[in-house]
C-alpha cells in the first residue's frame, strides 16, 4: 500500500451557521479517484476548496504525506493541480496565451507542447483566437488542456464535465482512467454519471457527512 498523498482527519466546516460536514475523514491515495457526492449546496465545492488550500475556514487536520500541511505549502502546491468552477481563463487572451500564463507559474513548457495540448482538447485552429470569441465549452476546454500536460500527482477537479459535449466527456473520462492507472490521485465533483473502476465515494449532505 502506498502512502496517502493527502489525508483529511475529522474535517468540519460550518457555513452561515449551518454545518456542511462534520467528522469527515478520508485518505487520497495515489492511483485512486475519489468522487465527492451530494446534493446542491451540500458543500462539495467548499470541501474541494478546503482540500486545495483556498479556504481556511475549517477545523480538523489536513495531512500532506502524513504531516500537517501548513509546513509544506510550497511542496503541496507544486504537486497539486486545482480546476475550479471558474476556469482561470482570461477572455481577452488567446488560448495559447492563457495556457502559457498558467504554465509559466508551474514549469517550463515549450510552445509546441502547449499547441498540441490545445489540439488534443479539440481546439485545433482556435489557438490564437481571443477566448471571449469562444463558446463556454471551448473556454472550459482551454482549462482542460492543462490536464493533458500536467504532471502533478494530485488533481482536484470541481465540476469538470460542465459545458463539455459528449465526445469531450468520453475523452476526459478516458484521460482520468488512464491517469489513475498510472498512479495519479484525483478528487472530482460532478453531476455527470461517472462510473470508473476503483472509484471511491465521499458523500456529503444531511448534516453528518461520512466518508472512507
Amino acid at each position, binding site marked *: 500500500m502506498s502512502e496517502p498523498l493527502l489525508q483529511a482527519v475529522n474535517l468540519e466546516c460550518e457555513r452561515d451557521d449551518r454545518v456542511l460536514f462534520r467528522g469527515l475523514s478520508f485518505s487520497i491515495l495515489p492511483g485512486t479517484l475519489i468522487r465527492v457526492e451530494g446534493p446542491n449546496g451540500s458543500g462539495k465545492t467548499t470541501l474541494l476548496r478546503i482540500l486545495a488550500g483556498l479556504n481556511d475556514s475549517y477545523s480538523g487536520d489536513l495531512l500532506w504525506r502524513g504531516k500537517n500541511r501548513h509546513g509544506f505549502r510550497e511542496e503541496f502546491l507544486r504537486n497539486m493541480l486545482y480546476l475550479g468552477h471558474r476556469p*482561470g481563463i482570461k477572455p481577452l487572451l488567446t488560448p495559447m496565451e492563457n495556457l502559457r500564463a498558467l504554465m509559466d*507559474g508551474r514549469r517550463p513548457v515549450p510552445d509546441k507542447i502547449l499547441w498540441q495540448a490545445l489540439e488534443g482538447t479539440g481546439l485545433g485552429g482556435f489557438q490564437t483566437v481571443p477566448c471571449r470569441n469562444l463558446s463556454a465549452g471551448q473556454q472550459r476546454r482551454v482549462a482542460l488542456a492543462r490536464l493533458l500536460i500536467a504532471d502533478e500527482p494530485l488533481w482536484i477537479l470541481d465540476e469538470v464535465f460542465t459545458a463539455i459535449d459528449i465526445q469531450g466527456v468520453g475523452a476526459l473520462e478516458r484521460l482520468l482512467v488512464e491517469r489513475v492507472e498510472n498512479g495519479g490521485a484525483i478528487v472530482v465533483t460532478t453531476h455527470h454519471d461517472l462510473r470508473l473502476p476503483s472509484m471511491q465515494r465521499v458523500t456529503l449532505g444531511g448534516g453528518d457527512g461520512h466518508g472512507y
Partner: protein
Amino acid sequence: MATEPVIGLRSPDLSVGTVTAMKAVFVRDLKTAFRQPQDLLNPLLFFVMVVTLFPLGVSPEVSFLQQAGSGILWVAALLSVLLSLDHLYRHDFDDGTLEQLVLQPQPLFLLVLAKSLAHWVLTGLPLVLLTPVLGIMVHMEGNSVVVLCLTLLIGTPVLSLIGSIGAALTLGLRSAGVLLSLLIIPLYIPVLIFGTGTVTAAAEGAPVEAQLALMGAFLVLALTLAPFASAAALRISLSNS
C-alpha cells in the same frame, strides 16, 4: 496497489523560479490591459480633465495657478489611481485566474508585488509622463515641474502598493467602491502631504533633499510591507468567497 505508481512527486528542480513566475504575471497583466485600452485611458483622461477644468472652475490667474498647481496635479493623480484600483484584482477574481495565482507554489507576496508593479506601469507611470505638459499648462516653473515629476515618480508606486491592500480586502464585496476609498484615502494622505510639500518647498527655493528622502522611505516601506498585507488580504477574500 498492484502496480508501482508511475506518476511520482514532482522534484523541486522542475519548478519555475520566483522571478520567472513574477515576470509571467507582469507580462500577462500588461497584455490583458493593452487588449482593453479603455480601462487604461480612463484614469488618464480623468487626470487630464480635472487639471484642465480646475482653472476654468476656480480661477485662471497665473499667480493662483502657480501656487495651487502642484496640489491640483497631486490630488488629480491620487484620485485617478484610486479610480483604477477596483480593476486590480476584480477581473482576475471573476475569471478564476486569482485562484490559480494563489495556488502557484511561489511566495504569494512576490506575485502580488508583480501585479502591483504592473498596475503602476499601467496607471502611475503614464500620469508621471503627462505631468510635465500639465504642469506647464498651470504655469508652474521649470524647477517645480521637475520636482513635481520626481515626487510623483516616487509617490505613485506607493499609491499602487497601498491601494493593492484595499483592493484585495474589498474583493469579495459587491459594492466595494465606497469602502475601498474610505479604507485607502487615510493611508494616502501622508503621501499627498509630503508630495505637495516638497514641490512647495522647491518653489520657494528651499532644499528638498530631505523631503524626497522621506518619500523614498515611504516607497521602501510600501514595497516591503504592502505585498505581505495584500497577499494576506487576498487569501481572506478568496477563503470567504
